[in-house]
């Protein structure tokens, strides 16, 4: 058997990010904690006491406590050893919010782990969790998303003081996972005027111009809240939505050039703000950026497409990713 070098000091990993990390003893470090120092002082006092009173049992007690302290070292170290960590996809967030990278931890040896603390190198907040014997633990690791673009998880600090808090074991791992950060929605410019477009198909009312009332039908996601028949809703199990006849759909172009701000980031923020506004008002919207144009539409996938375009505008995703790591 190959004996490992005793790990003493660990620092943020310089390794390439990996999809899956297994904590082997070569990358799990352990050192006494501050509490351990306090207990060492107590042990010295106890031993002096035992010598002074020539009390065999006091010696025994002191050595017992010392041995228990020493023995907790193995348990602490084993608490991290043999953990397999993978990062799941993180949900996109807006800049200024907190991205949460779900880390999945599995105990390969089928032994439960307790009080595992995880902290992304980039943020100060530690989250704790216990890994059950079977199955795994999903722990969302918060990272502050300050600017738009791709946010890499980067180095992650995993640590534990279980069981006695006398030793602190830790490991730095680097996981290949990133999160898309949309621009921060901001800006006070009013929504551009929408252009009317006749829509022969009728269908769901989603423009500003509301014409003749046609009837009621069930609610489907995406319907404007303003068209819900609230009075009728009290009598029905499903939400009734008013439909209108011969309605004209209005479409809105969110244009880079229409924003009257110089700073490109502020422009993107304003566009993002407009986009969300148009979304709540149930308008069809298109996006025009230099070198990119997305035709007016609505719905979840369209929204995501537009937001992604805003997020990565002017940035090379892969390059950005490498910088952050």
């Amino acid at each position, binding site marked *: 058997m190959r004996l490992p070098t005793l790990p003493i000091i660990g620092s943020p990993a310089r390794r390439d990010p990996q999809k899956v990390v297994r904590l082997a003893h070569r990358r799990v470090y352990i050192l006494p904690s501050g509490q351990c120092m306090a207990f060492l002082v107590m042990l010295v006092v*106890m031993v002096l006491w035992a010598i002074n009173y020539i009390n065999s049992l006091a010696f025994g*007690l002191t050595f017992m406590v010392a041995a228990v302290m020493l023995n907790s070292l*193995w348990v602490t170290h084993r608490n991290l050893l043999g953990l397999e960590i993978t990062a799941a996809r993180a949900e996109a967030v807006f800049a200024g919010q907190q991205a949460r990278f779900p880390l999945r931890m*599995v105990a390969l*040896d*089928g032994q439960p782990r307790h009080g595992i603390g995880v902290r992304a190198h980039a943020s100060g907040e530690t989250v704790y969790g216990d890994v059950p014997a079977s199955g795994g633990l999903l722990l969302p690791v918060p990272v502050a998303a300050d600017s738009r673009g791709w946010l890499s998880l980067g180095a992650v600090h995993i640590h534990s003081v279980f069981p006695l808090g006398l030793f602190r074991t830790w490991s730095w791992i680097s996981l290949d996972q990133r999160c898309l950060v949309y621009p921060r929605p901001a800006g006070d410019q009013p929504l551009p005027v929408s252009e009317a477009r006749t829509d022969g198909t009728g269908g769901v009312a989603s423009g500003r111009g509301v014409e003749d009332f046609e009837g009621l039908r069930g609610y489907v996601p995406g319907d404007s809240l303003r068209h819900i028949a609230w009075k009728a809703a009290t009598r029905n199990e499903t939400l009734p939505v008013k439909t209108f006849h011969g309605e004209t759909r209005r479409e809105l172009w969110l244009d880079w050039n229409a924003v009257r701000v110089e700073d490109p980031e502020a422009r993107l923020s304003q566009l993002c703000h407009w986009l969300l506004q148009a979304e709540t008002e149930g308008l069809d919207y298109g996006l025009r950026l230099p070198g990119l144009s997305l035709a007016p539409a609505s719905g979840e996938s369209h929204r995501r497409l537009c937001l992604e375009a805003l997020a990565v505008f002017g940035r090379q995703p892969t390059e950005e990713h490498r910088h952050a790591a």
Partner: protein
Amino acid sequence: MLRSNRHPGEPLSIVAFSWLIPALTLSFLPHLRHVPWWLGLLFLVALTWRWRQRKQWRSPAWTLLALLTLLAGGGVALQYGTILGRDAGVALLVAMLSLKLLESQRVRDGVVLLMLGYFLVLSNLLYTQSMATVLYVFLSVYALVLAQIYLPPQHAALEGRRAMRLCARIVVQSIPVMVVLFLLFPRIPGPLWGLPRDAHDGLTGLSDRMTPGDIGQLSLSEAVAFRVRFHAEIPPPNKLYWRGPVLWRFDGRSWTMTPELRGERLNYDFRGRGTPYTVMLEPHGQRWLYALEMPGSIPEDTGITRTYQILRRRSVTEVIRYDMMSYTDYRTGPLAPSELRQGLQLPRDGNPRTRALAADLFAEHPQPEARIEAMLRMFRQEPFHYTLSPPVLGKESVDEFLFDTRQGFCEHYASAFVFLMRAAQVPARVVTGYQGGEFNEMGEYVMVRQSDAHAWAEVWLEERGWTRVDPTAAVAPERVERGLYAAVDEAASLPLLARRDNSWLRRLALRWDMVNNTWNEWFLSYGPSRQREFFNRLGFSNLGWQQLLMAMIVALLVLLGIYLLFHLIRANQRLVVDPLGRSYHRFCGKLARRGLIRLPHEGPLDFTRRAAARFPGQANEILEIGSLYANLRFGPPVAANDQQRLRHLVRNFRPHKEAG
């Protein structure tokens, strides 16, 4: 960037508190016997108050805390007259614990509480060191370690039963390290500095003063004074006189020891063969050691006085073990002038009837031996009575005893006899110690109990030097031959173990004493000299503390190496032994032999989907294996039989390519 430990600043969780309470209570409980009642009450009130308010605890205002601290400190000072010393120290510790409970809010406070708990456990060892105490200490340490697990708030979710099991494992696994430390830690002769005066209060045994009634009181105790293992034949009971303090001075009521000069040599002749033996002496808080009359050698670090008392430099406050050689047949040398003066000292007046009797004896018998014989004959023939409960004596104690009450215990007879001898011009003194002892056939040693405490006389004769005369033997010969139980009428009032009947209860008690003796011999008496002896026996002689320290470090490193090896082997084995991984691995192996190799990045679901396409005939099994494995590995906790099902499926899985 390495952050320092963050949790000391974090709030103490309710869970942590609910584990601290039993641990601290366990550490405190034995002290109920030592601290004043109001401190016990303070602890109880603090604990209850804190527990009832645990959900939204706000520590009392600092003014209230300061006031309470002052009150408690003042109370202790008033109670004991000092705040130093053993009892006052323990009382202060209890007060500190109670007040700390009231202001504990953070994890850091929890650590302090734990430490106070450990010190309470430690200080209890000043009062008792029995084996039952050891069990209690183990229990207390266990509870404290358990509470320590729950201190950091992120450990609060840990299941109680699991924590208890883990804690038991840690404690049991640390025993080898503890043994190495206990044996090898260099023992320095203590104490390092002055001990408080009350450090070893509460020890029983003979004192340097004898007043009628003292020894009778002592003989009601069944506590063992010392145990003796003879390395040759055990001398007959009438030779088993264990010499203790020699009392010269009489003030009309009490006999006291005079400060003794150290003798230059053992100035007497030994006759016959010596008796070698080893004594395990229980702490009695005095400087003298007990030895069979007369000691022919003395243990190291001790000296012998002109009255043949073995004295140690400091009091015996711990169990000590020493080897002795005694000669029961001896002749001491000539009488020094100071000895003659001291040996005839009497108060100027008092006890006229006894003095008159002595004058008669002196006139009647020119030979001192004849005077002694006449006196003993009087004890034998006249109605003297040996009893544990003699009548109380007045001012002329010797007169009243010899002529009126005639009922007494050994100290009455020894005192009266020595008084009479001195009045009759025979140099004499009182010797106290123990007489007899009981053979414990199970451990093959002699137990000498407090109930064997005895007082006898020594007279100086021209030809023989100092000669032992036991007047009690004249009154009650069975006392010397068969012990106290056979000699007194009030036998039933004696403690069980001082009796010599043969009930099963007594046999059980003997066995228990044997266990205690082993405990004393191997554990409690393990000090600097015993440590040296232990290493001599192993073949390392004259180890200094530096070598011991080195040996300890080396042994610890070896032990740690063994632990590390086991730790790593187990950590590695576990990865391979993981049953779930093994099943899946086996499944992949079967497919690989059929030419379908799992790609490194392929998860179980992707891989089984691909495999199902390759082996459509067994698609159902393959997909089930994939989903079972993925669920077991990554999903929420599931029933145990899912794992069995997976194993079963994999075992019976035979991939064969379907034609078409």
